[in-house]
């Protein structure tokens, strides 16, 4: 048996980037689902908790969690690895006068910073929600957190970092996976920005609760499609 082909995913630059890109895209997809779930908060306690209960009743959830963990680890490890290689290659502000040549964006130039910010935020997020006391009920736990100014400011920062990270990461992953063509590359770029901007909804949601708007408005009714999925 010859496993050289699979090994190259780890031993070559493009292989590592492929892992980073593929895991990144998967994580971006996860974030979109996560966002959709969070939006259920708008529909009120019953709807949100009902969905969470439905999820938790699935026996495959621990497996999915491990999968998610692997995705995160793969993304983080290959990301750091690639970064170290790039450091060795003599990159980063090589010149006395360093300036963009016109290719970089704020998102791309800050990838490593948003990455570390997200990592820190991830740990915080896990402590706060994943390993927290779930007995008060999920809706209660989340909305309570969202009424805490300090928490919301961290949460907003995390969401913005994520948006920035994805503004480059999404289309970059497609490029790395070889999916770039003059015909549709602008569509991928646009989709990347749309995904990035949608991450701001996380932040808006927390602010919504912080300002107590949920108390002022009745729970929103979800669009018809979502309704049928939930029920």
């Amino acid at each position, binding site marked *: 048996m*010859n496993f*050289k*082909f*699979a090994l*190259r*995913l780890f031993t*070559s*630059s*493009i*292989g*590592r*980037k*492929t892992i980073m890109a593929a895991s990144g895209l998967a994580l971006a997809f996860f974030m979109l689902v996560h966002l959709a779930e969070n939006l259920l908060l708008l529909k009120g306690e019953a709807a949100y908790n009902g969905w969470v209960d439905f999820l938790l009743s699935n026996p495959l959830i621990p497996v999915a969690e491990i999968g998610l963990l692997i995705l995160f680890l793969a993304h983080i490890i290959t990301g750091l690895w*690639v970064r170290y*290689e*790039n450091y*060795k*290659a*003599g*990159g*980063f502000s*090589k*010149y*006395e*006068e*360093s*300036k*963009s*040549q*016109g*290719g*970089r*964006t704020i998102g*791309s*130039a800050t*990838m490593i910073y948003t990455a570390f910010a997200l990592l820190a935020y991830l740990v915080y997020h896990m402590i706060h929600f994943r390993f927290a006391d779930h007995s008060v009920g999920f809706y209660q736990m989340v909305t309570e957190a969202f009424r805490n100014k300090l928490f919301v400011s961290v949460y907003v920062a995390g969401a913005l970092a994520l948006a920035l990270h994805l503004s*480059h990461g999404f*289309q*970059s992953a497609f*490029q*790395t*996976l*070889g*999916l*770039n*063509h*003059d015909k549709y*590359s602008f569509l991928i770029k646009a989709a990347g920005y749309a995904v990035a901007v949608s991450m701001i909804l996380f932040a808006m949601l927390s602010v919504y609760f912080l300002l107590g708007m949920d108390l002022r408005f009745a729970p929103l009714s979800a669009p018809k499609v979502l309704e049928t999925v939930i029920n």
Partner: protein
Amino acid sequence: MEKGFNITLRVWKKSQDEKDGRFETYKLENVIPDMSFLEMLDVLNEKLLKEGKEPIAVESDCREGICGCCGLVINGDVHGPDEHSTVCQLHMRRFKDGDIITIEPFKASPFPPIKDLVIDRSALDKIISAGGYVSVNAGSAPEANSIPVNKSLAEKAMDAAACIGCGACVAACPNSAAMLFTGAKISQLAILPQGNPERTSRVLNMVKAMDFLGFGNCSNEYECEAVCPKEIKISNIARMNREFLRANFICEEDPEMPLVFHKSTVDIPEEE
């Protein structure tokens, strides 16, 4: 005759013994706008030589933007402020009286410095020798028109083949990656039917050589595309990535070739 103007130059100087260099400042008077940037440096060097000072080591050859020999970072701009051109095509009319111009060499670990603004870019040749060719012996080729090539594909191959090997993509890359250079050659030969039989081994070996020589990883910031004098597109990098995945997961395993490089005048220790 046009009237000249005065400039101040801050030039990176490094002797052959030093590990690192420093900036030295020179004043130059009566710079004619019609001069090319390199002619301005010629004038400065003539002046320095006459004054008994050491001239600045700087490389150029064809001075018409095709040989890829010149390459400087001018005020932080790779190949100078003009878009998609080489240093030798830059003219002094882009500057004005009193300007302070900072000149640095291209920097990247796989491009060891030699002296002042002169660096060693033989690593790029080594990437080519790992597979940037079609294996066909002189005299054995079939009639040229026996394989038709779609015109727009031929144009695409030509777009990629226009690379002049100046190394600006590596110099501009925040990661010192050579993926635009490598991707361009892989693309040219992947698009043309003539390169098809060796597609698999080519991409695997060239990527291996690129990694081995210490170039960085592409983080898709597209600085390379922005400076490339020949406007080579990053879709070539995407194609290389595609070729790489294809070679790994779709194609039969081709025997791997050992990397044999020529020796450059500046030895890279890993290679010995």
